[in-house]
């Protein structure tokens, strides 16, 4: 994975496969303490303790089309290589929580990439799933909640290319704002 946004799309796909109705992405950039935390919480079917223990193993996958599952192991490796940590907690029937912590200024910390695109491209692909994206940089926070935004857009398909591009621009502009 070239950047963090690609990991996020990857984990979103897991949540969607787990039949989540609501997926939360919480990014916290605490530059004073040099911490970057990416959390993804869903209310999908969850996993048993046995499965949770296996998901970090690259040779475990629930997929039937092939024998490896690299999404979680790669994300974990990238977090840990920056002096950070990776935690996955899940409960059957409740959902799954992933917390990845990175050294914000660590030389091996991947760039963010296109986070706005990652959120919008996934959210508009699954319009029935509610995505709540919260991004905090030090003391400034931006929240993007598809439920709130889709209500405003009533009457037009959120999957139209024009709408996808507009939502992406909306998030990008707000991210610029909290980064300054």
């Amino acid at each position: 994975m070239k950047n963090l946004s690609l990991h996020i799309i990857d984990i979103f796909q897991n949540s969607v496969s787990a039949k989540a109705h609501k997926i939360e992405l919480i990014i916290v950039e605490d530059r004073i303490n040099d911490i970057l935390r990416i959390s993804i919480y869903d209310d999908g079917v969850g996993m048993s303790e046995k499965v949770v223990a296996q998901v970090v193993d690259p040779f475990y996958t629930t997929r039937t089309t092939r024998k490896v599952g690299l999404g979680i192991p790669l994300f974990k490796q990238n977090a840990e290589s920056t002096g950070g940590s990776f935690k996955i907690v899940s409960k059957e029937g409740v959902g799954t929580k992933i917390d990845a912590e990175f050294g914000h200024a660590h030389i091996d910390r991947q760039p963010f990439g296109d986070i706005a695109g990652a959120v919008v491209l996934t959210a508009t692909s699954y319009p029935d799933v509610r995505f709540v994206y919260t991004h905090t940089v030090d003391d400034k926070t931006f929240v993007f909640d598809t439920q709130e935004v889709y209500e405003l857009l009533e009457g037009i398909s959120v999957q139209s290319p024009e709408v996808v591009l507009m939502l992406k621009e909306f998030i990008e502009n707000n991210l610029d704002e909290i980064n300054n």
Partner: protein
Amino acid sequence: MEKIKSLADLKKKQKALKAKIDLRERANDPESHVQVKVSMSTCGIASGAKHTMDVLIEEFQQRQIDAIVTQTGCMGYCFAEPTIEITKPGEEPIVFGYVNKEKAIEIVERYVQKGELVEGIIPKNYQSIEK
């Protein structure tokens, strides 16, 4: 153009877009949009599927083609990622492999717009002639 930053800006833009999209939809059959699914699991993402999806959305927007581009899981052609499946209205879906930026543009221009078949089709849903 004004920057879209607040929810009020979004609402304002929604009105303009609605008029534009309604007009386009009235001109065409409501069921006439092209459906594109981009395979987005670890294999696809690592091969650049997100970039392919960005390119497709931009191309459809610029060419004013009624299309919906969405993600889907692994289609099982990990060797040929990024893979996309295109369903033109009233036609059978076709799966294309190794869809980088150039290929994506070629597919939109030649297959979607002109109806020509382009190289790179993965024969997924062929049918045999029963004797």
